[in-house]
């Protein structure tokens, strides 16, 4: 399992700089917003956390279709399905590797983007913290979509369509926890705990459903 984790990490770092492209996309999405809504710093600092969250959500969808596609193309997916370790565990490890390679860089990059959005220190810290606990959920949900679409010749766009509706709760509680930390009369902890609960819930459900889908598409 550690070997698989390391292998996936190494692959994603070496194959065309996946993490870098994700951050670049994230940067571009966030940078486009001020052009659309105007360079009003007050407004930007108000909508900043939401923009950063949406940017991270879209960026984390970017590499999803490659989660199983490369393995399917070179045939190693069949080996993964047939080996003795439970497929659920394999999928979980692959998701973890994918998150470390693409999700974690987004979390690390988010404070910089927070500065662009004229957010104060609390808002930046809260956004980074909610992204840190929330973005694994996005990967686990995405794994279901990636597994479902692995048999399709051009599944990339379909993955986004199938996955986005399911990610909405994560988005809601991530952003509301951030706002609660910045200005809200509401306490920060309840939405934050719900966010953690969502991540744990999808950490169980996502790999299980993805493993089931992989088993059904490969035979």
């Amino acid at each position: 399992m550690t070997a698989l984790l390391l292998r996936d990490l190494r692959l994603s770092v070496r194959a065309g700089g996946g993490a870098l492209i994700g951050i670049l996309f994230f940067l571009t999405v966030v940078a486009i917003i001020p052009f659309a809504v105007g360079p009003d710093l007050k407004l930007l600092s108000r909508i900043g956390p939401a923009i950063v969250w949406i940017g991270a959500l879209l960026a984390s969808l970017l590499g999803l279709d490659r989660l199983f596609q490369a393995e399917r193309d070179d045939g190693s997916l069949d080996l993964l399905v047939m080996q003795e370790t439970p497929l659920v565990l394999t999928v979980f490890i692959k998701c973890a590797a994918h998150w470390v390679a693409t999700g974690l860089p987004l979390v690390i990059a988010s404070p910089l983007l927070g500065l662009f959005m004229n957010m104060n220190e609390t808002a930046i810290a809260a956004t980074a913290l909610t992204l840190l606990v929330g973005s694994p959920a996005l990967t686990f949900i995405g794994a279901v979509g990636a597994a479902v679409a692995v048999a399709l010749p051009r599944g990339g766009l379909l993955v986004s369509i199938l996955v986005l509706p399911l990610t909405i709760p994560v988005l809601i509680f991530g952003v509301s926890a951030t706002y609660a930390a910045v200005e809200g009369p509401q306490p920060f902890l309840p939405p934050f705990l719900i966010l953690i609960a969502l991540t744990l819930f999808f950490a169980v459900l996502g790999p299980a459903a993805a493993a089931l889908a992989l088993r059904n598409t490969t035979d």
Partner: protein
Amino acid sequence: MSDITAISRFSDLANPTRFLAFSARLIPWLAAITTILFAIGLYLSFTTEGDYQQGDTVRIMYIHVPAAWLSMMCYTIMSMSAIGTLVWRHPLADVAGKTAAPLGAAFTLIALVTGSLWGKPMWGTYWVWDARLTSVFILFLMYLGLIALNRAMDDPSKAARVASILTLVGFINIPIIKFSVDWWNTLHQSESIMRLDGPAIDAEFLWPLFTMALAFTLLFFTLHLMAIRNEIWRRRIATQRRMAARMASRED
């Protein structure tokens, strides 16, 4: 003894040919009852008095509420047939799940459109981002996604199994829709019919509503049975074409 024959009769329906014969007898009856119920329901909904506050616009409810109920019931049926597909590999379950998706999308669209038409005079806006509207809108998106997924794959049985998994994952949304009005207190009114202390609306509105709900439900079952029959015939034709092509290539 009678129990055993009853069970075997029920499981006989798994055989597509028997199902076709059975549904051919059932559909005319269902269609007839649906028509009668719609006649009664529409008559009632147009003749009973309007609400003292909402006036005639309250009649939108008789379309809107049944459609919203059905949008959720259809997804529940799809989830049950998804379990049937994955666990028992029931040959009709995947057909049922596939054909229910467009119907569900249609009913959800009706609920959204009538709700927005009702919202303009009542709330002063066609659309607000409140919890129930948003979650129903997500339901609509999921129906469309499932239809797209089913269309994108060539092999119907593989498509059905993959779509079933996604259906089951998306089922989380149904309780969210159901309880959204109680959990988040926003513009949409809270539950007023299925309540522990009895319905909170007047009997005068309840009767047309129940009749329409029943009519909508039977309409769904009629259309669903017809769609399942179509799908079975479609697959048979595809199989026969394939066989004919194989025979032709063998003769050459």
